[in-house]
C-alpha cells in the first residue's frame, strides 16, 4: 500500500523527453506578446512521471478493484470493449469541423444512439449535445421556458421533490426559476395534496425522479402529471435511475414530457474519477423544436447532416457535438446488450438490489419497507442512538474491509441514510461477502469505528482545516 507520494512539483528536477522533434528557429511573434520565462512547470523524466501517476492510482478505488454500491450512481462494470471502440482512429482523429462528408460514420453513431434512447424512453426526439446529466437538466428547463414563452406565457416557478438530487433545484435556479420543494408522503412518494397546494399558474414544471432516490417507483406519477398538465405545466423526468426501468416501462407513458439520461450511469461509460459523463435530453414532438441545436438528421438517401435550421432551439450547450467519445462507449454497450439484454439489465439490477436488501435488512432497517427497485435506503438512526455509530462511521469501516461505501446522507429526508445500489454486474458471492462485512462493521466497537479507516493511505481528514487554510495549489 502506497502512502506518501510527493507532488509533481516536489519530485526532483529531471529532463523531459522531446515530444516535438528539434528546437525550432525564431518564431516571429513580436516580443511584447512573449512570456518572460519558460512556464514554471516541473521538469521531470518520463519514468518519474509514469511512476508518480501509477503510484497515485494505487491510492484510488475503482469499480475495477472494489465493489462500489453507491446509490444513485449506478457503478456497473465499465466494459473494456467500450474503451477499444472509443480508441478507433475514426473516433480519435475525427475533427469536429471537417466537412460532413468526411464524418458520416461519427454522425451515424450519434444518430443510432439517439434512436436507441428514443425507443427506450418512448420519446420522439433525442439530443446528445449535453456534456453531463446536470447540463441536460439545465437544457431541459430552458426548453420548458421556451415552450411556455412560445405560448405567450411567463412562468417563474419549478417544483422539485424533497428526495430530488441537488442538481434539480440548482439547475432550475441557474435557469432563472424560483424553486419550491414538494414534501413527499409517509410512503416516500409524491404527495398529491402537497402537489396540489403548490400548483399555480406560475408553475412551469414539476421535476420528478422515477424510480425516486429511495429506490421506490413513483406510483402516483401519472396522476401527478395529469394535475400538472391541467395547471398548464410540464413534467420533467430525471432519468438518473433508468437502470431499473429499461424494457419494463417507458418514461413517455409515465406522463413525462421530457427527460434526461446519464450515459455514464445507465450505459456503462466509465466515471473517470468524476467525469467525463454525457447526457441526453429526450422529449415529445411538441417540445422537439426547443432541443439544443444542431441535431443530427438523416435524409431520404441515408446521408447524415447537422440540422442548424432550428429557430426555436434553446441554443447550444457544448461548443461542438457533445461528449462524442462517451457516446461511442454507450452505443458499444447498447449494441452488445441488445434490446433484450437491456431489459435483462434492468431486471437483474432490481433482483440484485432486492437480494442485497434482504441480507442487509437483517442488520439495519430500510427507510421504507417492502420491495425496492434497483436501489434502497437503509437508516442507521437507531444504531446511532444505541451505540453512537453513524452512517459516516459505517462508511469508513467498510473502506477498511475493502469495500467502497454506499452513498451516505442522501436523500435528505432519511436520517443517517445509506443508499445502496449493487447494479446488475455483481455476483451473488460479492453481495454476500459485502453483507458479511457490513454486519461486522455494525458490530464493531464504536470507539474503534470512530477512528476508521485505518488501512487507507490516510485516515479521516480534517475538512475544517482544509476549508480554513484554503491551500488549493502548490506554491514554490
Amino acid at each position, binding site marked *: 500500500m502506497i502512502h506518501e507520494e510527493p*507532488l*509533481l512539483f516536489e519530485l526532483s528536477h529531471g529532463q*523531459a523527453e*522531446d*515530444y*516535438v522533434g*528539434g528546437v525550432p528557429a*525564431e518564431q516571429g511573434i513580436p516580443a511584447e*506578446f512573449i512570456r518572460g520565462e*519558460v*512556464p514554471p512547470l516541473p521538469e521531470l523524466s518520463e519514468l518519474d512521471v509514469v511512476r508518480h501517476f501509477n503510484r497515485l492510482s*494505487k*491510492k*484510488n478505488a*475503482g*469499480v475495477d478493484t472494489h465493489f462500489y454500491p453507491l446509490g444513485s450512481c449506478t457503478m456497473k462494470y465499465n466494459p473494456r470493449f467500450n474503451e477499444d471502440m472509443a480508441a*478507433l482512429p475514426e*473516433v480519435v*482523429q*475525427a475533427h469536429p469541423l*471537417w*466537412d460532413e462528408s*468526411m464524418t458520416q460514420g*461519427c454522425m451515424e453513431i450519434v444518430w443510432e444512439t439517439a434512436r436507441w434512447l428514443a425507443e427506450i424512453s418512448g420519446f420522439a426526439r433525442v439530443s446528445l449535445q449535453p456534456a453531463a*446529466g446536470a447540463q441536460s437538466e439545465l437544457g431541459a428547463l430552458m426548453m420548458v*421556458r421556451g415552450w411556455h414563452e412560445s405560448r405567450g406565457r411567463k412562468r417563474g416557478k419549478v417544483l422539485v421533490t424533497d428526495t430530488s438530487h441537488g*442538481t434539480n433545484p*440548482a439547475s432550475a*435556479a*441557474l*435557469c432563472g426559476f424560483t424553486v419550491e420543494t414538494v414534501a413527499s408522503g409517509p410512503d416516500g412518494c409524491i404527495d398529491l395534496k402537497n402537489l396540489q397546494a403548490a400548483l399555480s399558474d406560475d408553475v412551469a414544471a414539476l421535476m420528478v425522479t422515477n424510480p425516486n432516490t429511495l429506490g421506490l417507483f413513483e406510483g402516483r406519477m401519472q396522476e401527478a402529471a395529469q394535475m400538472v398538465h391541467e395547471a398548464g405545466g410540464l413534467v420533467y423526468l430525471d432519468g438518473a435511475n433508468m437502470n431499473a426501468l429499461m*424494457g419494463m*416501462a417507458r418514461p413517455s407513458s409515465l406522463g413525462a414530457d421530457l427527460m434526461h439520461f446519464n450515459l455514464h450511469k445507465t450505459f456503462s461509460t466509465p466515471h473517470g*474519477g*468524476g*467525469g*467525463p*459523463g454525457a447526457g441526453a435530453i429526450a422529449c415529445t414532438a411538441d417540445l422537439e423544436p426547443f432541443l439544443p441545436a444542431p441535431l443530427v438528421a438523416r435524409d431520404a438517401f441515408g446521408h447524415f447532416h447537422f440540422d442548424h435550421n432550428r429557430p426555436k432551439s*434553446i441554443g447550444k450547450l*457544448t461548443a*461542438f*457535438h457533445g461528449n*462524442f467519445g462517451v457516446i461511442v462507449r454507450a452505443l458499444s454497450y*447498447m449494441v*452488445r*446488450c*441488445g*434490446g433484450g439484454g437491456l431489459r435483462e439489465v434492468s431486471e*437483474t439490477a432490481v*433482483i440484485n438490489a432486492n437480494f442485497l436488501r434482504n441480507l442487509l435488512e437483517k442488520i439495519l432497517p430500510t427507510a421504507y419497507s417492502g*420491495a425496492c427497485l434497483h436501489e434502497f435506503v437503509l437508516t442507521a438512526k437507531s444504531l446511532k442512538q444505541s451505540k453512537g455509530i453513524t452512517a459516516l462511521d459505517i462508511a469508513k469501516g467498510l473502506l477498511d474491509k475493502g469495500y*467502497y*461505501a454506499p452513498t451516505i446522507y*442522501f436523500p435528505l429526508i432519511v436520517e443517517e441514510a445509506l443508499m445502496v445500489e449493487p447494479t446488475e454486474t455483481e455476483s451473488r458471492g460479492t453481495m454476500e461477502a459485502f453483507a458479511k462485512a457490513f454486519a461486522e462493521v455494525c458490530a464493531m466497537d464504536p470507539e474503534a469505528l470512530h477512528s476508521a479507516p485505518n488501512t*487507507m*493511505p*490516510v*485516515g*479521516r481528514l480534517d475538512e475544517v482545516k482544509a476549508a480554513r487554510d*484554503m491551500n488549493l495549489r502548490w506554491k514554490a
Partner: protein
Amino acid sequence: MAYIPHTPEDTCAMLKSFGVQQTESLFSTLPDSVRLERYLDLPAGLSEPEAERTIRGILAKNQMPRLSFAGGGAYEHYIPSAVKSIISRGEFLTAYTPYQAEASQGSLQAFYEFQTVVCQLTGLDYANASLYDAGSALAEAVLMAWRVTNHPRVFVAPGLNPLYRRVLETYTSHAGVLLENLPERDGIADFSRVNWENTAAVVVQHPNYLGCLEQVEELAARAKSHGAMTIAVVNPVSLGLLKPPGDWGADIAVGDCQPLGLPLSFGGPYAGFMAVRAELVRKMPGRIVGVTVDKKGRRGFVLTLQAREQHIRREKASSNICSNQALCALAFTVCVALRGGRGLRDMASACAVRARKALERLLRIPGVKRVHNAPFFHEFVLELPFNASAICSDMARHDRIVPGVPLSRFGSARERELIVCATETKSLHDIDELVRGLAGSLGRLKTGGAK
C-alpha cells in the same frame, strides 16, 4: 446476455432465497397501465466480435483525410504514449467522484496538481478541478463577473470563437446579462470608443479564433480603470510561449484542455479550465481540491469549499455542475508533466514556426491573400479566389487533404475565407502537399467555373 454474472439457475436460487417465485413480482409497484407490453424494438444483443464488426462498420463510413490543417477550437497535437497508458488504469478510469476522500487520494492529488498546473500556466491565483469545456467555462465566468460586480453589460471581443459565443448566449439568455460586441479592426478588437458604464466584464480570446493576437494588456488596463473585469479565453499550448493572462491583467482565465493530452474525438469529451484572482475563489463554480492533514499528521487531499456546490446549496449553489471532466483533466496534467515547461515552450514555438512557413508558401499561390495583418500564433485567415467550402470539398475528394476550416462554418457570410492551422505535427513535406493540393484545387475550380 452481456455483463450479467448470473446463470438462470443462479437467478432462481437468489429469488427463492428471499421468498420470491418470479422476477415479475418485484415490479408489482409499476401500474399495469405503464408497463411496456412488447419488447423494445431494438436489435438483438451481439457477442463482442460481432459488436465490434457493427461499430467498425458504422465508423468505416467516415472518409478520413490523410492530412488536416483544421483548427477553430479543436487542435491536432501529438499525445505522448504515456498519457493513454496512465488514464486507462482501472483505478483512475473506473473511480467515482472522490467523496470518500480516504479511498480517492490518487484522484484528489491529481486534481490538486491539475489546479496548480493551470495556475502556473495562466499566472493566476486559483483554479478549479475542471468544467465541461471552454464554452461552458466562459459562460460560468461571465455569470460570475455579473454576480460579483452587479453590472449587466458584458463586452465581447469580435475574435471570440462563435461556437463559444453561442454557448455563452444560451447560458445567459434569461439572466440580466447584456452581451455587447466590440467593433473589429484587422481581425482584433477596436476598443478606442467604448462606453464602459455599468460594465461587468470584457471577454477577449487570445489568440482569437481568427488566429490573431489581441492588444490584451491595453484592453485589460482600460477595463480595470472603469471597474470592469477582464475574462481571457486562452489556448494552453500558446501559454508555453505567450505572456500569461495573470501577467497582462486578466481577472479570470478560461480555456480548453483539449490541445494538451486529449484527442480530437469529434468534439468531445474535452475539459474546460478556469483560473481566477484570489478574491474571486469563493465565487468559482465546480469542484475544488484542497490540502489538509489526518489525525496522524499525514498530508491528504479533500474536496473543499463544497458549501458552494449543488449537493449542499441546492438552489443557492453557485452553479449546477456535478460531474467535472476528471479523466480529461488527468490526461492534461500527465501531458503537461511529461512535456515540462521547456517542452511546452518548444511545442508552442514549433507551432508558430510551422504556421509561418505554411503562410509563406501558401501566399506564393496566385490569388491567395492573408486577410489580416495582426500578429498570429498558429492560425491565420486566407482569402481565396473561390468559395472556401467548395475548395474544401474538392480537396477532400481529390487529395484527401483538409486545408482548414471555412469561415462560413462559424456562420460568417465571408464565404471565400478559410482559417488555416498548422501545429507542430505538420512537417515541411506536409506543408508542401497542402500548397500543391490547394493550387491544384484552385486550378480545377477555375477551369470548372468559379463558384
